[in-house]
């Protein structure tokens, strides 16, 4: 079982979420209390009736039955209300918890999100939130009513007969001890089963996703053998774990019956001695059941609550992460698009500099290209310009203003960006293209689609602009997805356009057309292009060759060729150096 590190604090913090819902908490408490009182009183009445039956005093019975009827009605209505209030309460709390969590994730700095594995973030937002929510919704009222029932039942039993109460308690504790022992055993088996289930899911996910590779390499039989082995293991562990789980029922049944026999036998004995009435026996039979149920439930809940608290802790950890600093001048308007890097230094990991003393001035309306081998820091420059990461020292200015003094929203509105990863959202093509601003007209959208050459792609889709794209790509090739993301960036009409390997999977002719369109679109605007394909960057006004975070050469295509430096080398491998 997973144990929370700071159980008490986390529980307190979780409880704080209930504070704004005081109305429902009180209503729930009221309903639970009434239900428990009714539930505890009813068996007492039942025992009266039985006693009357035994004594033969039938006149009082209808009266008692009337009261019983009333009590049970109260009990029923109250449990109904209890269900209603606890559902309302837990859903409201879970809604807020989930909303806070998501809002937090969206406002975290990119650096924090890069620092977590996506799987880990996902699991906190789904599994942990789900765990907390299910415990809140399922255990809340049962815990409440469990404790109250326990108190009420013990009181009633003690009132009826002290020795019988003690006897009942013995069997109850027997069952609690058994439950705890069994759950410990079961937990181990369940953990093993869960691991295997995870392994099975992993295999299926990996192999079915990569079924092309599996088929292409004739690995079907090997894959099937691996799967069958894990599947067989799962079967064995599953049988063991579930048998343990299923045995609980009969064992508890036995203990319940044992307590029944004890109650009956000793009850009879006490009745024989005249210390008790038969009606009390019948009441005790009900009470002993009523008593052991919440005790067992609470014992089982203990584990769930621990797991949920551990989950809550991970959620709080995330909530406590610092949000992105988006502050700055909200009214700033990027008008020209002059970018300047001044003595910029940056490292992702302290001691391993990625950008060193980087100086570059990009005039408005120019097309700048960054080239260099993998790991030379090209993408990092984009991360810094977008304020995804803060510079370590030096500064970046846009139109002469330090970007730290421009509100993130203003800065990012002004910069259109197309990234290496072609992120598209599960929604219509139209929504994806108009992502920057849904109020853009359809005419403008189609115009941008034409310019970015994705209009042909869209025309090939079943419902054209109303086709819903699925996350996986719905049959679009990587190149086609890239065209869509370029269209999306065009539609945001940016002052500064950044293309980070945006056309790597697009053929060079289509790329050429897009570039021609860009010349029109980006007239008097600034573009920054990152690529390793030289055809992409050849027409740039300024080509910046980077190596290990430094600029080693700048100039236009002809100038750089004439220098016969690094750029010349790159160029030669592309056009002549390959001739062997």
């Amino acid at each position, binding site marked *: 079982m997973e144990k929370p590190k700071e159980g008490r604090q986390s529980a307190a913090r979780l409880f704080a979420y209930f504070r704004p819902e005081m109305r429902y908490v009180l209503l729930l408490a009221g309903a639970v209390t009434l239900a428990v009182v009714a539930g505890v009183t009813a068996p007492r009445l039942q025992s009266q009736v039985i006693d009357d039956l035994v004594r033969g005093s039938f006149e009082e019975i209808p009266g008692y039955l009337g009261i019983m009827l009333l009590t049970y009605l109260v009990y029923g209505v109250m449990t109904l209300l209890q269900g209603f209030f606890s559902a309302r309460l837990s859903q409201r709390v879970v809604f807020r918890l989930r909303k806070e969590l998501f809002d937090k994730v969206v406002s975290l700095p990119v650096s924090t999100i890069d620092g977590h594995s996506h799987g880990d973030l996902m699991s906190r937002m789904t599994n942990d939130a789900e765990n907390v929510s299910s415990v809140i919704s399922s255990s809340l009222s049962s815990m409440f009513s469990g404790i109250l029932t326990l108190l009420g039942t013990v009181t009633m039993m003690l009132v009826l007969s002290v020795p019988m109460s003690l006897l009942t308690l013995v069997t109850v504790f027997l069952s609690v001890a058994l439950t705890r022992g069994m759950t410990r055993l079961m937990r181990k088996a369940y953990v093993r089963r869960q691991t295997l289930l995870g392994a099975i899911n992993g295999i299926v996910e990996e192999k079915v996703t990569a079924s092309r590779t599996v088929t292409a390499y004739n690995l079907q039989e090997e894959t099937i053998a691996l799967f069958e082995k894990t599947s067989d293991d799962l079967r064995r562990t599953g049988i063991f774990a579930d048998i343990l789980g*299923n045995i609980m029922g009969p064992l508890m049944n036995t203990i319940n019956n044992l307590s029944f026999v004890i109650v009956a036998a000793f009850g009879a004995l006490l009745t024989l001695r005249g210390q008790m009435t038969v009606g009390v026996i019948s009441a005790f039979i009900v009470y002993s059941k009523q008593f052991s149920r919440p005790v067992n439930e609470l014992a089982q809940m203990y584990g769930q609550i621990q797991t949920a608290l551990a989950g809550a802790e991970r959620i709080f950890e995330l909530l406590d992460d610092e949000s992105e600093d988006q502050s700055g001048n909200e009214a700033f308007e990027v008008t020209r698009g002059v970018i300047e890097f001044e003595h910029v230094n940056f490292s992702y990991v302290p001691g391993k500099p990625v950008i060193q003393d980087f100086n570059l001035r990009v005039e408005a309306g120019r097309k700048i290209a960054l080239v260099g081998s993998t790991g030379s820091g090209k993408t990092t420059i984009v991360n810094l310009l977008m304020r995804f990461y803060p510079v370590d020292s030096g500064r970046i200015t846009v139109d002469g203003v330090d970007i730290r003094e421009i509100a993130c929203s203003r800065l990012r509105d002004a910069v259109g960006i197309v*990234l290496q990863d072609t992120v598209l959202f599960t929604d219509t093509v139209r929504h994806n293209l108009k992502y920057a601003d849904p109020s853009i007209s359809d005419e403008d959208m189609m115009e941008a689609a034409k310019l970015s050459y994705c209009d042909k792609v869209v025309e090939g889709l079943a419902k054209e602009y109303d086709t819903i794209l699925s996350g996986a790509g719905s049959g679009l090739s990587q190149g086609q997805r890239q065209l869509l993301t370029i269209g999306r960036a065009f539609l945001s009409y940016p002052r500064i356009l950044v293309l980070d390997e945006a056309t790597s999977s697009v053929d060079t002719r289509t790329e050429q057309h897009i570039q021609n369109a860009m010349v029109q679109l980006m007239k008097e605007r600034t573009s920054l292009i990152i690529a390793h394909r030289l055809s992409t960057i050849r027409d740039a006004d300024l080509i910046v060759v980077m190596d290990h975070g430094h600029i080693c050469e700048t100039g236009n295509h002809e100038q750089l060729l004439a220098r016969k430096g690094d750029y010349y080398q790159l160029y030669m491998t592309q056009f002549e150096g390959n001739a062997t």
Partner: protein
Amino acid sequence: MKLLFRYLRRYGIWALLASGFMVAEVFVDLLQPRMMATIVNEGVLGLSSGGVPDMELVIRTGIWMLVVVMGGALFGILSAVFTNITGHGCGNEIRKQCFRRIMHFSFEQTDDFTVGSLITRVTNDVTQFQQMIMQLIRGLVRCLMFFVGGTAALLSLDLSFGVILSVAFPVILIDIIFVVWRTNPLFTMLQKCLDRLNGIIQEDVAGIRVVKAFAQEKTEKARFEKANRELVDTQFNVQMMLSFLRPVMNIVLNLAVVGILYVGSIQVREGDIAPGTVMAAITYISQVLNGMMMLAMIFQTLSRGLASAGRLQEVLDTPSEIRQEEIGSKEDGSHGSVTFEHVSFAYADNGVDVLHDISLSIHPGETVALIGSTGCGKSTLVHLIPRFYDVTAGRVLVDGKDVRAYDPVLLREKVTICLQKSELFSGTIRENLITKEGSRNEQEMIRAAAAAQADEFIRQQPEGYDTPVAMRGMSLSGGQRQRVAIARALLKGGEILILDDSTSALDLRTEAALYQALKKDYAHLTRIVIAQRVASVRTADRIVVLEEGRIVAQGSHEELLACSPVYQDICRSQQGEGEKL
């Protein structure tokens, strides 16, 4: 349903044993209230002996009761054991069969089902199905026994109790039907809401840069809030429906108890029955009604399980399309020739021809490059060679034999394809390279890795060739992943090597070195290369230019440069001044 019977038949004996022991367990449970009645009536009240309590009878019956209870527990445990053997056994078999079937699906079939849905079927649906089987064996038997046995026991105590049962029964039945009827669609909706919510989280976490770059945090928050609201509302509705079940049941149950007491009091007054009998009757009626309550739960599992069984059946009923066909076509003895004869192809989902009347013949040992714009059908064309898809018209021949006449396994031994998306598996780099254990030695592996320009960076990894590749290769960079995938392809061997745009993430120098190494060390292979860069293809023996699914030109770099306008255009796009070459 078909599925259910097929598997239940194989595990019939275990299922029967499980049900048998369950019947025995319930029988014992039903015996107890009667014994209790004896203790109260005869022992405590001494009704048959004229009001003299019989302590000895109490003890004796008590001991008997304990023995019976222990027996009940034993039956219960045995029933659990056999039920689990049956349930997990069936689940395991169907899981294995489905997976085997999926592994032999054609790509079109996989695309039709979608990967996500197949994963859910093999995992979630199997679990649901398994649970349904276990519920049927245990739960249903138990419920019916309680229901029938409890009713019989109750009526055998006194027929007048039947009146109460006949009133309570329909009320509960209506309640159950109502709740099941209302909640079932809600469960489907709940799952959809949950999927949507998780989808948004997944997308936004993965695409956080785009969200932020477009400053759309507010939009995403609103989108999430809407999905969150829908989920919470649906969850609330489900909980409300379910919470209707229990209190109503409780009210009916308790009213029935009051009724029993009332009827019982009349009977006792008339001297027809003893007070102990009334107590036993109360126990029986709660058993009967509890049995019905369990039935409601079972119906839910059953309806979900049947839906799952249907989805599994769909997988099992899908015949593998890619099969060796009996067409008179023989190999011509060459090693590594590929011929396309008037090939046309359309994907099944839209029926639009992607390839039109392609004829092309590639000789053993030749290097052929395919070039053309995005979406022109290059990948589709090469996918026909290892028979990932079947042609719509025409034929594809490998070594003179129609690919459809090959055993698919043998065909794919001859044809090695390195895909655009380099899918690596979890495990070490070595495990990824040597796909079949024991088939290749260390030297061969290193030779392939070196040719793929991967040896150097693999050696720099913390554990060299034994470094684990994270899930789907996320810890290696795109270029490194591609090189590992190429090394894997080289190591696999075969006669025909297809590189489907699999060097796109390599920088120019690395790519050049790779092609050089291929030429030197793997000259015997027929190489078919798809690439975007002219530099990658210009050294090929022959370059084939595709345009909108048709071959528009073929020849050497120089020939094409001289006569193909499309090729000239491509070169110009990559160089600006084509004449400079």
